[in-house]
């Protein structure tokens, strides 16, 4: 791959919004595809994204932007601390009380329809969320609507098990994971009734989810560092209810490929990083970006990034024929694939 651009001093992530790559750098939003730049002033307290939308938040209101940095909606609301956006007229605005506890106002078609309090969990869509009884109570959840007027089902882990932080809606089902010291289990349940559809043992790894194809994929390994370690991939197909675990086809060893590190799935290509540690006083080790084909099961390439030696790959995004790789030091390299 050939380097076609480098951007430095990115102190935030790079955001993949509707197939556009947007960077937030030095009080400017930059669409790296169109090169459009939107500068924002000191009054803006937060500049972030929620689902497929960007937002700018200040003391007296919130602006919702699309990926091309066009203003979609301006909401006049004082003292908000955040917003969860489903679309430009359906959103939840977050506030904090004097005890720093959060609550939200929920809007449907830009009309206030209710308030939510003491929420520990996450919105999965404008209709569903999972919620815990309290923070860090990871043995139990309820699947409810956002205002907690309706509980679809609840789940209690068996003794010794804990929920993993991976919940996905796929078609009309909820897919989630839980684990103990010895086992990791994936369950799929009907989203409205909680009826179990599929339950299977899996390897404990963090996945990237391809909703369109109903696939969960991961890759990991340290065989270059530990002789008894295996380099492996895991692909779960929700359509066929199959779990495939194997060794990727390649003629070299992984050193530090972690399934929890940022990976990116683009068609059949799973991009991953190999991040060997560097130690003070020694020559920094190079780090790598690689590509695993989930259909051929072959590692297409692995490429050193000498420009980022001693750092770690923090994020990978593919957009068209460009691959964006951001380091933990805030450097971004753009490759032409």
């Amino acid at each position, binding site marked *: 791959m050939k380097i076609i651009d480098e951007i430095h001093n990115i102190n935030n*992530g790079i955001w993949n919004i509707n197939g556009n790559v947007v960077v937030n750098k030095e009080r400017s939003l930059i669409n790296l595809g169109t090169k459009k730049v939107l500068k924002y002033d000191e009054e803006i307290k937060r500049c972030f994204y929620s689902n497929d939308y960007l937002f700018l938040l200040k003391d007296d209101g919130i602006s919702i932007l699309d990926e091309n940095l066009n203003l979609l909606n301006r909401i006049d609301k004082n003292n908000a601390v*955040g917003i969860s956006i489903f679309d430009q007229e359906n959103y*939840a605005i977050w506030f904090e009380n004097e005890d*720093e506890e959060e609550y939200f106002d929920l809007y449907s078609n830009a009309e206030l329809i209710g308030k939510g309090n003491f*929420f520990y*969990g*996450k*919105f999965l869509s404008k209709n569903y969320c999972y919620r*815990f009884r309290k*923070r860090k109570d990871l043995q139990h959840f309820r699947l409810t609507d956002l205002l907690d007027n309706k509980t679809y089902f609840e789940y209690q882990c068996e003794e010794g098990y804990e929920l993993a932080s991976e919940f996905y809606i796929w078609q009309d089902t909820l897919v989630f994971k839980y684990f103990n010291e010895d086992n990791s289990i994936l369950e799929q349940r009907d989203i409205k009734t909680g009826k179990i559809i599929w339950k299977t043992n899996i390897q404990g790894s963090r996945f990237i989810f391809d909703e369109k194809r109903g696939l969960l994929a991961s890759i990991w390994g340290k065989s270059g560092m530990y002789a008894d370690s295996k380099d492996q991939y895991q692909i779960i197909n929700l359509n066929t209810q199959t779990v495939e675990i194997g060794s990727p086809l390649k003629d070299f060893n992984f050193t530090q490929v972690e399934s929890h590190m940022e990976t990116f799935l683009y068609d059949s290509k799973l991009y991953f990083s190999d991040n060997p540690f560097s130690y003070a006083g020694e020559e920094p080790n190079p780090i790598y970006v690689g590509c695993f084909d989930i259909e051929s099961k072959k590692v297409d390439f692995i490429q050193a990034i000498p420009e980022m030696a001693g750092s770690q790959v923090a994020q990978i995004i593919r957009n068209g024929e460009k691959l964006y790789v951001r380091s933990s030091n805030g450097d971004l390299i753009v490759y032409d694939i």
Partner: protein
Amino acid sequence: MCLNKWMFNGAKNPPDFKQNMKKAIDNLPLTDDMAKKFLKDVENPTASKLKKYLKEDFDEIFKLK
């Protein structure tokens, strides 16, 4: 929140270790992106929420041995 544990040598523990570490957390250059990465089960993850949880969970994350 899933964060690594950090082990420290208790024999070298200065009396104000915990207080100093909590002050250091306040000064960490944490971002909303980091909060989104670490607070997987939290809606509206923010840098300030990440700092708050790091301090609340201090004794679980930073262990003196």
